[in-house]
């Protein structure tokens, strides 16, 4: 059990386009253990989805390419696998659910066909057996009347039910890792709560590791054990959820937390937005991608990426501002009640 489930080190995935090189993921590292949930947070274009797709080796090549780094699944280097071997890993070892369950299900096949296909691809099961399993899986993710529902087409399912069907497909081969890319973003809150519950139950049952990609810090606070904050292809800060929410060290993390209206706070405080516009990924500065929007920018920020600094066990940040100064700045911010000693 001492073995790491997944270890990603210095991953860089770039897209070579006519307009220039897009450094979608730039030197990103993270680990995942069994039964652990890692949240990857960031806004559009931060590289969070590309990081996950890189782990699955699903980057369209060309124009994309993993240019650097290692991806190790239970001691096995995924970058060294050929496409056939990788196909075995996908589904069996790592499965993924996507944001939009309508576009990720094939509209002309029955739900049962699509789940059974995944089962037959990876397990030595006949068609009848696979269909029976499909119905069982649907029932397990909470679809009522699964025996009949399995014979229906995606258009006959509501958004929440489609996402459940996607989860059923993802867990069909009992994967070690479930990657959920914005699994609840397209859903209404009450349905979102249902899906979050299903993911939690599945994780408890199968002891899988979950990588949760989201822009919603609320969902992270609810589901994740640890979190990695991405901006412009870089990890700017990572740590346990308590460390990142209560002892944040990167100005971008401050900005994100300050931008959120809070349901549980009654006095009306003005939000503290991050100034400026999202970065142009082709014109990212060589240094910190957040420079240009950062209020505390220094001369060195733009040209050199700061060294990694370990704040505490499992909590790290990349920022040029010296730690003492950072803590002083943070103490002045209106929206923080820093609680963790």
């Amino acid at each position: 059990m001492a073995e790491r489930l997944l270890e990603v080190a210095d991953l860089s995935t770039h897209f070579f386009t006519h307009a220039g090189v897009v450094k979608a993921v730039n030197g990103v590292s993270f680990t995942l253990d069994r039964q652990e949930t890692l949240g990857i947070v960031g806004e559009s274009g931060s590289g969070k989805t590309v990081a996950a797709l890189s782990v699955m080796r699903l980057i369209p090549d060309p124009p994309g390419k993993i240019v650097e780094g290692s991806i190790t699944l239970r001691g096995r280097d995924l970058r060294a696998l050929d496409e056939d071997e990788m196909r075995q890993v996908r589904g069996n070892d790592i499965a993924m659910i996507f944001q939009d369950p309508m576009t990720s299900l094939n509209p002309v096949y029955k739900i049962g066909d699509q789940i059974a296909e995944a089962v037959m691809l990876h397990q030595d099961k006949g068609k009848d057996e696979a269909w029976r399993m499909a119905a069982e899986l649907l029932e397990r993710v909470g679809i009522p009347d699964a025996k009949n529902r399995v014979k229906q087409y995606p258009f006959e399912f509501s958004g929440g039910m489609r996402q459940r069907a996607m989860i059923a497909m993802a867990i069909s081969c009992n994967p070690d890792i479930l990657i959920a890319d914005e699994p609840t973003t397209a859903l209404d809150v009450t349905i979102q709560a249902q899906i979050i519950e299903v993911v939690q139950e599945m994780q408890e049952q199968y002891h899988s590791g979950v990588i949760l990609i989201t822009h919603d810090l609320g969902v992270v606070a609810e589901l994740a054990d640890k979190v990695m904050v991405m901006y412009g292809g870089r990890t700017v800060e990572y740590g346990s959820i308590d460390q990142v929410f209560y002892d944040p060290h990167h100005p971008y993390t401050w900005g994100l937390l300050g931008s959120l209206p809070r349901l549980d706070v009654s006095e009306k405080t003005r939000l503290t937005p991050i100034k400026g516009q999202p970065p142009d990924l082709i014109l990212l500065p060589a240094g910190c991608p957040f420079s240009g929007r950062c209020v505390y920018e220094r001369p060195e920020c733009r040209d050199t990426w700061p060294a990694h600094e370990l704040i505490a066990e499992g909590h790290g940040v990349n920022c040029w501002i010296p730690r003492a100064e950072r803590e002083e700045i943070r103490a002045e911010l209106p929206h923080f009640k820093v609680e963790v000693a």
Partner: protein
Amino acid sequence: MSLLEVRNLKKHFPIKSGVLKRTTGHVYAVDDISFHVDQGETLGLVGESGCGKSTAGRSVLRLIAPTAGEVTFEGTDVMRASRSELQRLRRDMQIIFQDPYASLNPRKRVKHIIGEPLDIHGIGTDDERRRRVFELLETVGLSAEHAERYPHEFSGGQRQRIGIARALALKPKLIVCDEPVSALDVSIRAQVINLLEDLQNELDLTYVFIAHDLSVVKHISDRVAVMYLGKIVEIAGSDVLYDYPQHPYTEALLSAVPIPDPQTERARRRIILEGDVPSPANPPKGCVFHPRCPRAQEICTTAMPRLTTAGSHAGGEHEVACYFPARFDSGSRVVHKEPFLEARPAGAGAAPEGGAASAPVASE
């Protein structure tokens, strides 16, 4: 008198099928809602997809023709306004749309997009209009140099600012904001929310703020109306609603919103509703929420309860449409769920609103 009064508003979209396109049913998108908005305040309309919040917003402006009901703006009957009266009214009532990519004409320059309302209403000379466009750009945090550009040169947040500038061009009194920040990233969303708040203070604007994100609605609204399947199920001051939700749907909705605070999250109890929202083409009989309601009883299947004042907490109006609204003691804890119509005012009658009120527009 309120700036905007809406009474018994209904919008039923016909469902047509077959070669003859005969009407075979109706989608009850908005089904008998009433509310008012006072000068200078923000009323939030919140609910999940398909609850009718956007249809309600557009019906109020008569961008779509309501099936029935009354809308009064500053004493003027919007529903019966003639074409020219309506054009006059539209100067005072504007809208901001959700998708800043779809709501700006990609072939027009920003100056034309923002200046178009001035052209249509024939306001000012060319020179005055140009100056007004520059002024509006500054007001929303852009600059005069942006006037010559096209929408594709802007990011989502900047486009939304252009949409806001267009809505402000005619110096309206009321703006219906239809999910204005839902398509934006978190950091940009906060900028636009702050901008809307500043504009409200500076220009004494009144907002009807439509959104599905409860945290945003709570932040920006003075009062909030919760909609479910075409009905308003609860309406109260935003803090009161969040602290003392009485309708079981409001409670579930609030408990489902993830809060970006791990400690709070760990301590929370979530109410998870069963199933999906039913189709508005075939709403459940009785209370529209009863098939998913944890408190539903026999009476709930008979008729939709009327929206009635049901105890007030911390002052202000608080209305709920439920036979079993939650009650609160001095603390904020739900003490008991009274079994019956205790909180109905005498004038409203003890009996729930029957089918009679909706009969004239029933489709069958």
